[in-house]
């Protein structure tokens, strides 16, 4: 994707590009997700927050086709879809940065970035254009990576995370899922990732951002969706939510927030 193209004038007001309803997912004895719904519009950043084990990563993996939900529907651009697998999700235009990064340690940075989306000239790989594009992507993230021809195993944790983020920008995604993308990043790189999230939004992409950092979430998100114990616990517009409210919703210390919101929303709609 090219981030230099003129932005589409959307800002959270576009139509829903991805929407999930009634998602259930069970792992053996653990009901990881119960009746979860989530909607992302074009040009909108939705933050997904919740305590450890709340089911955020599981939801991300359901969207990206790694797990199949036990029940529930996924609509992509208002069409019901079945995300059969990661390749299917990519074809739809869903790009994901996984919490565990999912990089191939034995391959170099370029190979990892373009894995599954290799540039080719005839039957052969086009290493030159991939390497050029790799440097361009890494520069937009202010990546501090000395060489793109070294195996990913020899990169630092933050460099690996940058590679994983850069990988989600390869191709032409419509929705980008970021599962704790800044957990290992330095100050400058975190700021770059937040800038990137805003740029993605300005270009009309839908972004789902999982993060434990409330300051980051409040800085870039348009809406904040809270998961608790695998259920939708609350949903806020960022400008309406205080950190205290968020924390309360995440920890469940004050259940009435949910009730208050529910009441107010029905009022607004009714």
């Amino acid at each position, binding site marked *: 994707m090219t981030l230099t193209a003129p932005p589409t004038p959307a800002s959270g007001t576009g139509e829903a590009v991805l929407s999930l309803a009634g998602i259930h997912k069970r792992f053996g004895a653990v009901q990881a997700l119960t009746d979860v719904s989530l909607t992302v519009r074009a040009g909108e950043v939705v933050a997904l927050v919740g305590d450890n084990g709340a089911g955020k990563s599981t939801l991300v993996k359901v969207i990206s086709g790694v797990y199949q939900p036990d029940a529930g529907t996924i609509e992509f651009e208002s069409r019901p879809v079945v995300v059969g697998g990661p390749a299917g999700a990519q074809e739809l235009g869903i790009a994901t940065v996984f919490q565990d990064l999912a990089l191939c*340690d034995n*391959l170099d940075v370029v190979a990892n970035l373009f894995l599954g989306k290799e540039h080719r000239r005839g039957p052969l790989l086009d290493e030159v254009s991939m390497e050029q594009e790799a440097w361009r992507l890494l520069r937009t993230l202010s990546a501090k990576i000395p060489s793109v021809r070294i195996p990913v195993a020899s990169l630092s944790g933050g460099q690996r995370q940058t590679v994983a983020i850069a990988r989600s920008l390869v191709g032409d995604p419509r929705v980008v899922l970021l599962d704790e993308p800044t957990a290992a990043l330095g100050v400058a790189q975190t700021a770059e990732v937040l800038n990137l999230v805003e740029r993605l939004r300005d270009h009309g992409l839908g972004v789902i951002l999982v993060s434990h950092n409330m300051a980051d979430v409040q800085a870039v998100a348009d809406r904040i969706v809270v998961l608790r114990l695998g259920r939708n616990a609350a949903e806020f517009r960022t400008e309406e939510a205080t950190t205290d409210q968020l924390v309360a919703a995440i920890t469940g210390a004050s259940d009435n927030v949910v009730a208050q919101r529910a009441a107010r929303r029905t009022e607004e709609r009714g």
Partner: protein
Amino acid sequence: MTATKESVAATDAADERLIRAVSPGDYLRQGWGRIRGGDLGMLPVVLGLVIICAVFYAYEPTFLSSRSLVSMLLYAAPTGIIALGIVVVLLLGEIDLSVGSVSGFCAAVMAVIVVDQGHSLWLGIAAALGVGALIGTAYAVLHVRVGVPSFVFSLAGLLAFEGALLWVLADGSINIPRESGLAQFARNKFLTDAQAYALVAVVVACYLGSRLWTIRRRRAAGLTPPNLLAVLIKAALLGGGLGWLTYYLGIARGWGYLTVLFAALVVVLDLLLRKTRWGRHLFAVGGNEEAARRAGVRVGWTYCSAFVLCSVLAALGGLLAAAQLTSVSQDSGTTDTNLTAIAAAVIGGTSLFGGRGSAYAALLGILVLQSIESGLNLMNVDSDVRYIVTGGVLLLAVTIDSVARRARSSSGRG
């Protein structure tokens, strides 16, 4: 050398921490650093080959005679082709223990069709390769759909296809006529001197051309191009080496068709592994299967292609071995072939842990094993010693792989 005047650093050389190689001395130093860091590549096996050759040469100078080299290269080819398939499977971190029996069984299928039933040679070859492909597909289904570990189903295949060989060859062995095309190809066809030198010239020209093209493209794209001098030196070494080998082999019969076929398969597989999407995906799945799956790689197909290729190469190796010996018997492709092929791939430097190796591993590995066999034969040593020595070399190779792995992880080379 002269390009260092450029004031603007190439895109990929901008980071100040990057240790750049400019002079030939830098390249040597970098190479040394790589070796110390455990990135041994082909070095141990090349060194091993040199040592083995030196030792046998000291005992028996005819070991390195032109005649002896020509026949070594011929006899190494069939098992080497089987070892190529093993390399592909090992890259995925899997194993195929049944290549030997598959090779024997497929050769028997060919022999029955061509010799017993009198069909055309091409039909026989196609049938044998087809049976190989079917076996590979069956393995892939077992692995991908059912989830049986490759160790188990290939062990089952080892026994089953040995049985199938006995069943197909109900009345002993089948002799392949010496004048049949296949036997001629494997035993009596050699490149003429002119053909051989022309082939060497073509190979060097292709190498040089592709490297120069790369230099041009990378320079145009603002990336550091490969060092021109290094490329020229490598091309000269390649041309000189191959030219000298051609001259030396030409004193006897020269390059056998079979040897050339093996070498061509090595080069083609190497290109497939390094330069195509399929090869990239093979390495990715071998390195981190889950990551490859999440990146959209069709992991099942990757496994399928590897098992099919391995079994087809085993079938091809079996055909050629049968043609070379002009017979298929009840012990065609039994344990010896199996272990030699697997040992060759590992000795050549293919990691048993997946994701690391190259097609040249099969070539170098089989050369090591073949020279041990030929050398001990020359010295009139029995096969008991040969097995022990081969076992020792295999153990050494795996030890080197494990030690290098540890060195790599402490020096950041994955």
